[in-house]
């Protein structure tokens, strides 16, 4: 091991959880705070193996509430800090996330979705979409990247730190148990070597000088006295969120221009969707593919534009409509001819079943 965690570009073979840990190392994360929960444990396993080699820190907390609030403390002290969790842990994390939203704290996390509700399975699901986009008592002031490949886990984990610190909204990599545990090749790199400049962190407290003498004290709060005061405080945040949205919104689309039907999906399901689209195209079916990468903010305009070209949709998700909800909202007032859904809460998709579904209807 050397000072520079990654020497040049390197093709490697890893699990998703390891990929996230390496990405955090490459991004210059200073400290991780975490609590064990399957399927995210190996993020901590690998981080704790690497941390001493690269001068990074780790704290295992007593629960996810503490993991969230200690991460916030670390960030306010000026550290590039992060955490990772899943399922019931994500539920507990909504509290610190809401504080980060209100106080514009650049909280970064990886979420490895598992089945729900409750303890359910430790394996796989897409049932934390509602919670990660609009959880907590607030307005969903977060950025949520839904990844599909290990390369994306790596790329978007690095990007999350920059999105969070640039715009000061909590930012998440929303993956799942399959991505956590599956293994595939990816290219690791130092962000700087690709011209990705890591956004500098800043302290919220412990600033130079004596407060009250050399500078005003930094007083941070999330409590307000009256409705009007809260309104005055929150509306500028909403405005900044909206202004940020057009810069951070991302999606992927293929073969939509001449499509008769478009498969809508996100995250790991989009691997099956893309493969199905390619197989159907090879058979002569005019099938398109649209996949939001940011679930929050949602690529509404992009989807509306696609709907202008083709308004037959097949939506597939491993949940009971959590992804369909923002899709339908985006398509409100847009003429839609057909909108079919396959909901499989906590169960994965294969390309074959999507191929069969579309073929059988043609």
């Amino acid at each position, binding site marked *: *091991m050397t000072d520079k965690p*990654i020497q040049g570009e*390197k*093709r*490697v*073979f*890893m*699990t998703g959880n*390891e990929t996230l840990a*390496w990405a955090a190392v490459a991004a210059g994360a200073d400290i991780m705070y975490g609590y064990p929960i*399957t*399927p995210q444990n*190996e993020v901590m*396993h*690998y981080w704790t*193996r690497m941390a001493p080699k690269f001068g990074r820190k780790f704290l295992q907390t007593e629960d996810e509430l503490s993991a969230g609030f200690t991460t916030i403390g670390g960030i306010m002290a000026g550290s590039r800090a992060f955490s990772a969790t899943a399922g019931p842990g994500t539920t507990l994390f909504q509290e610190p996330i809401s504080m980060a939203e209100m106080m514009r704290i650049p909280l970064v996390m990886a979420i490895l979705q598992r089945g729900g509700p409750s*303890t359910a*399975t*430790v*394996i*796989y699901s897409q049932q934390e979409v509602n919670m990660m986009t609009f959880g907590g008592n607030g307005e969903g002031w977060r950025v949520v990247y839904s990844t599909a490949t290990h390369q994306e886990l790596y790329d978007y984990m690095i990007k999350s730190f920059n999105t969070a610190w640039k715009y000061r909204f909590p930012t998440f990599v929303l993956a799942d*148990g*399959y991505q956590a*545990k*599956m*293994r*595939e*090749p990816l290219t*690791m790199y130092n962000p700087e070597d690709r011209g990705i400049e890591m956004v500098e962190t800043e302290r919220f407290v412990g600033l130079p000088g004596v407060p009250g003498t050399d500078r005003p004290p930094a007083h941070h709060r999330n409590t307000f006295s009256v409705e009007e005061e809260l309104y005055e405080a929150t509306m500028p945040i909403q405005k900044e969120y909206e202004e940020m949205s057009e810069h951070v919104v991302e999606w992927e689309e293929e073969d939509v221009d001449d499509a008769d039907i478009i498969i809508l999906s996100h995250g790991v399901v989009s691997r099956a969707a893309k493969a199905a689209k390619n197989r159907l195209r090879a058979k002569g079916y005019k099938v398109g593919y649209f996949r939001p990468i940011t679930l929050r903010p949602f690529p509404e305009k992009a989807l509306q534009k696609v709907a202008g070209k083709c308004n037959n949709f097949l939506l597939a998700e491993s949940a009971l409509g959590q992804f369909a909800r923002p899709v339908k909202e985006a398509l409100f007032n847009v003429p839609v001819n057909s909108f079919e859904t396959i909901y499989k809460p906590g169960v994965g998709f294969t390309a074959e079943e999507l191929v069969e579904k579309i073929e059988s209807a043609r």
Partner: protein
Amino acid sequence: MRIVEAYIGEYASGKSENAINRALDLVQGEEPVTLVDLDLVEPCYTLRPLKRQLEARGLQVIAWETKDTVGLGEAGAILKPEMRWALQRAGHVILDVGYGASGSQIFNLLEGFTQSSAQVLAVINVARPMTATVADIIEYLQEFVQLDGLINNSHLGDETNMAIIKEGVDIVSEVSRKMQIPFVATAADERFRSQLGKQDHQGHTVRYLRRFMTEAFW
């Protein structure tokens, strides 16, 4: 002669593929062969889903079945009682070992395990960043009290090419020389048979692998 071999390695090193293929090789002989799934770290990627398929091929498989494991993962690090007594069985025993930070301490869980009775073989994939260089591999292997051989299983999944296999041979050879631990074999996917032949470019035996673990997800 009775063979007891433990295949150890990092996540995605290929230890399970090597263990399965070794066990299936041995089952061609007369002795019974027992394959033990001793993965206490990452129970999602175990032999569990393959149990019946492997039994149909003549192996005795000691592994949990998914239906028996409520809270799999949460409680995945549960030792099946038969595992503790696996070495008491007649015939050959192949252990697929996920060991965690405690390294070869895991062998304390096996009744009758002695250093002289078993071969501990480390499966190494140089495409894994924690075991990418000679120095890293040596640092990693030093955790093990017992280590009898090295298997170069360098690969990039479906993207595997001759270059990565060759790089693995060179790096693992260097580790073998420095640590004075035998280089037992290079392992590679069946599809490289025509290119690689019986020996790698440094003259080590090549073990060809049929891949099973792609079906073993959860």
